[in-house]
């Protein structure tokens, strides 16, 4: 296995192997929480923190833990960090904690986290595992915020409402509104809206990838079969 460069680690985490749009991992919190941008941001940051901590720890102990018990140890590490993050959030971001409620413990079940521990951190030195955790987490957060923003905008006609839950009273002014008489589209706020929104985002990513690929190879003709390109 050839070593990934940092550039590759970052671009994989943010785009090429985005856990939400490509791997489709962590859908449970992703779909449930993203009814507004601030909810997405809160869960995204909490996930990123846990992912970075767990990746770093798993990488640190990778030579210490025998293969037979590595999974229980990873689960233990992740569960401990999630509980610690949950308690800290309850203490310092109480309002947001009330909104995200039961979804913080659900970070434990986010397969993206144990997936990265198993697939990457367990075979890589600490700095690279840390970089991977950060990029994967930020990539996940970006999707959460975008999806939350879309659903909030379409569903209730606002953007960045309730930001004061995270950033204090000063952030109340961040809220954008399309107007008081906006009727709201309930579908976007309800669970189906999350699936539709995620589908649209995946489609958008595929379109962009397609364009990029075509731009890189402008003179290619039909000699290359699609199968060969896919491989």
């Amino acid at each position: 296995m050839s070593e990934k460069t940092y550039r590759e680690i970052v671009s994989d985490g943010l785009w090429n192997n985005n856990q939400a749009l490509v791997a489709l991992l962590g859908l449970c919190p992703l779909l449930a929480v993203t009814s507004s941008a601030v909810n997405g941001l809160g869960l995204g940051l909490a996930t990123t923190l846990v992912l970075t901590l767990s990746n770093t720890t798993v990488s640190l102990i990778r030579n210490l833990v025998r293969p037979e018990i590595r999974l229980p140890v990873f689960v233990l590490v992740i569960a401990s960090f999630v509980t610690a993050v949950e308690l800290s959030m309850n203490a310092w971001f109480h309002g947001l904690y009330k909104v995200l409620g039961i979804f913080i413990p659900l970070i434990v079940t986010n397969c993206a986290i144990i997936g990265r521990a198993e697939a990457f951190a367990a075979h890589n030195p600490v700095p690279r595992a840390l970089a991977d955790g950060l990029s994967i987490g930020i990539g996940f957060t970006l999707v959460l915020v975008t999806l939350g923003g879309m659903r909030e905008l379409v569903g209730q006609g606002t953007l960045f409402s309730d930001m004061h839950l995270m950033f204090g009273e000063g952030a109340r002014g961040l809220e954008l509104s399309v107007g008081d008489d906006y009727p709201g589209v309930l579908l976007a706020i309800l669970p189906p809206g999350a699936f539709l929104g995620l589908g649209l985002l995946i489609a958008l990513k595929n379109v962009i990838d397609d364009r990029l690929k075509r731009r890189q190879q402008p003179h290619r003709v039909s000699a290359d079969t699609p199968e060969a390109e896919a491989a």
Partner: protein
Amino acid sequence: MNKPAIVIAALVLTAFGIAGTTLVAFTHHQTGDRIAENERQALLRQLDALVPVESVDNDMIADRVTVSDPEMLGAPETTVYIGRRTGEPVAAVFTTVAPNGYSGPVKLLVAVRRDGTLGGVRVVSHRETPGLGDKIELEKSEWILGFDGRSLGDPPAARWTVRKDGGDFDQFTGATITPRIVVTAVKKTLLYFRDHQQTLFATPKQTAATAGVSG
């Protein structure tokens, strides 16, 4: 796998178990006071909106009684916070639950003044449909303020329901169940208060002697 390997694996696993538990215990210890204070402050803010701080001089959070009447108050145990001024009862705040919401129970705070009028009602938590049933929250609409100052005689008992059922309280477009169960829960709380006012106000914890005389 031979025996020593199993032993080593078990020891490593135990070590991680201890380390993980230590981390959680440490965080819990560091944040415990702050979390308790947060919850106390949140409760105080809600109580203050219903029974203004100026109108009472006791610690309402400490001066509470626990009653049990699932039929009227919706939960196996209901905490009632009592507000007093110079020992005299001013108001009781019920943690009423409307158990039959559209998607699960709706937790309320219902403040009843000594004369039987409502100091106000607030929703503590609910899982009603966003955009429809969630208009019971003060952040979303002012509907819940419609209870302020009402009592069992105002409106008369028959009209203590939503308009759709021939009552005086508005429902929302597309959501009748949620306002209906909130109105019913508030009405039942008022009925409970009418029947149990004496026992509720009779037992101040700190000054049992004086209240025995005045209550």
